Structure formats: C-alpha cells, structure tokens
C-alpha cells in the first residue's frame, strides 16, 4: 500500500487499535466532529456534488488552493451519522493535504479501518465512492 497522508494513517491506526464496538464509537465521535459548511456553501447544496453511492444524502465540494492543497467540504443530515462519520474520516485524513498525496491514497484504504464487521461491507461502499469522487474532482481542478 502506498503511504497514506499522516493524518489518515493515524486514523487507520486508531481504528485498528480497538475492537469492532469501539470502532463504531470512534465513527460516531467523528460524525459529531464534521465541520459545518462555510458561508459560501451555506445555501449552495445545489452547487455541490451528490454522492449517490451513499445510502443517505451527502453533498461534497472540493477546492484546490494555489499551493495545490486540497480542501474538502461536506454536508450530510444529522439523521445520517454513518455517512457523516465517513465524510469526517475523509475530512480529518485528507483536508489540507497536497493534491498529489490525495490522489495517491489507495482506493481500498478503507479496508484497513476494519469497519466491515461493525458496519457491514455493503454500507462501506459509500466510503469508496466518496474517495473516488474526491479524486475525480481533484484531478479536474489540477488538470
């Protein structure tokens, strides 16, 4: 596996250090830490990309700044804590990282989080879809 950005690698370590029940608790805490949208996106859910693979509505916006660093913005309703948790993993692990490092994250990195047992493999597909859409937008911004 290619090297993960440091913050994402730390998250993977945190998840793999505990059992399935505590992994769920960790995901719940992350879901509560997902930052709200900045002013410029507050009324702009339409301008954000919907990730259809997630079981609940999730909107995603990606910006790449002049220093080629990636900034991620998510919006998901409080009734969708699992989706918020997945988004929060992406935000904590990838926000502010260089575009090249985000593009280098292996598509199946989420397997290392060990959430399959606690969340079910079907539900996890939403996370894979989120990463692939982030990468697609980063590529579009840096092309």
């Amino acid at each position, binding site marked *: 596996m290619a090297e993960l950005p440091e913050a994402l690698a730390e998250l993977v370590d945190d998840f793999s250090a505990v059992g399935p029940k505590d992994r769920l608790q960790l995901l719940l805490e992350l879901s509560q830490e997902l930052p709200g949208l900045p002013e410029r996106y507050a009324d702009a859910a339409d301008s954000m990309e919907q990730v*259809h*693979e997630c079981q*609940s509505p999730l909107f995603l916006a990606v910006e790449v700044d002049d220093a080629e660093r990636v900034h991620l913005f998510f919006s998901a309703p409080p009734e*969708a804590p*699992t989706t918020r948790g997945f988004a929060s993993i992406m935000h904590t692990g990838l926000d502010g990282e260089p575009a090249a490092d985000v593009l280098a994250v292996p598509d199946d990195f989420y397997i290392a989080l060990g959430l399959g*047992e606690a969340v*079910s493999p079907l539900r996890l597909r939403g996370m894979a879809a989120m990463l692939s859409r982030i990468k697609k937008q980063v590529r579009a911004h840096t092309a």
Partner: protein
Amino acid sequence: MTALRVSVPRTIVGAMALPADTDPKLADYAHPERLVTTEWLAANLGTEGLVVVESDEDVLLYDTGHIPGAVKVDWHTELNDPVTRDYVDGTRFAEICGERGIGRDTTVVFYGDRNNWWATYALWVFALFGHADVRILDGGRAKWVAEGREMTTEQPTPATVEYPVVERDDVTLRAFKDDVLAHLPKVRSGDGALVDVRSPGEYSGELLHMPDYPQEGAVRGGHIPGAASVPWARAAAEDATFRSRAELEAIYLQEQGLSADDDVVAYCRIGERSSHTWFVLTHLLGFAHVRNYDGSWTEWGNAVRVPVAQGSERG
C-alpha cells in the same frame, strides 16, 4: 394474561403480554394489535413485559439518541449470518433476544428510520422464529422525533433472560427461488400473485440496481413475469405512518386487483423493502398467505435461465 381472539398466521399465534393499543385509527386494520401509536408507547414505556427495539438503515443512528430504554438490533450485523447468505440460526437468535431482555412472551415493539423500512424487516425475522407478540410503532422514529418526545443516549443495561432455542420456520412466511418458480403457474392462472415493491425503473429493467444503491446490482434487469408493480413506500404517508386501511385497499385491492385470499409472494432487492409490504398485506389488510422472497432481485437477476420480463407491463 389472556390470549386475544384475533386472526393471526398460525406460526405467530400466542399470548400477548401487554394489552393492544385501542386507538381508533388502528382499529380499522385487520390486525390492529400489530401496531402501536406514539401516545401508547409513551404511556407504556418501562412496563414489565415490554421491550422496545430500534432497527435502522443507519447503523449509528440509535447511538445518537433513541427512545428511553430502547435496545438496538442491527439487521446487517446482527440478524444476518456473517458468512452464509441467510438469517442467524435459533441459537444465535436466542442470544440476541436474551441479552436484550427479550423473553419468549415479551411484547416487542419495533421502530426505525425511513418509514420503518428496517423495523418491519427485523419484525419479519422475529416472525420467522415464531415470536408471538411483535408490533410496529406507527410512524417510527421520525414521528416520535417530530412530536418532540423524549430521546436519550443512555444505553439500557437489561438483565439477560432465557430465550428458548427455536427452529426458524422457513416455509410459512419465507419463499426461496424454487418456491417462486413453483409459484409462477399460480400467478398465470390467477390463484396467486407476485408483488414487486422496487422502484419503477428497477421493475422495467432500465436500472440494474436501486436508485442510489449501485452496490446491490444484478446482471439482468426487469421483473419476475406476472409481478404487480407497487413500490413499497406507497404504503407510507408523509409523516411515516401507514396509510389508512381505505387508502391501502385502494392501492392493493382496487388498483392492483389483489384479494385477501390470494397466495402472494413479495420481493424487492434483498428482501427488506418487501418485508414492509409483507407487513402491510398480512397485518393491515389481513391477507392470510403472504411470503417474502428475500433472495429477491439480487438472486433472481443473477440466476441462470429463470424467466425475466422487461418493460412496464406485468408480462
């Protein structure tokens, strides 16, 4: 404890621990004792013999706050066998119930997100094990929250009780692929019916998966020949409660031509949406013979040489 004299399928006859909700809206349904209102539940929380179970699509939703005293049962991770595509066996089911304080005579009220979609699925699995007194909170989680009723993050710590190891009944309420194949001549002759509860696009074959759920796809699109198309959520009102008996009859009887003595098999993609329809037909409209085909389109649409119809006609 007195047994209620009501008509319920043979496998789920038994004593009811708590008295039924006598709300007039529920009284119209065929088996009103299978539903409780939010008022009834609020008044009966904490009563001996009652366990409230939350079952959601979102595996973390319960943990963000739930009805006080309610326990969680997750369909994906708990009611499914982790290896074989099947439900848990009697031994595991007894553990799941016992550790949540559910005894064989306990009244179990299920509720959940998304119009009780997963709550009815959990109830159906409990019914496979013949648990007698299973009920749905009409309106589910959404209605309870909308009414501003109490929620808590406090995890209950029920004392473990003995639950007997019961063999699952896979005949009365459940259909397998071979059962559906054997059912097709009955559908053609009009003695039986199939109800496809998926979205119109899945039914016609334009979509190989449910909108927004591409992970549960099939290599062929369409429906089982002869199936009526009735998307499951038509049975739910805006506030997530079930539609009234008259409204449900207008859909399933008048519009679709089903009748209560039909032998019916309902299916969707993995059997969850169709357990909602199974509940509606069996308990709200009083159909005597309804089975849920849990293999559903993820089995049928991937199976070799089974008949498939495409387009919006039943075929």
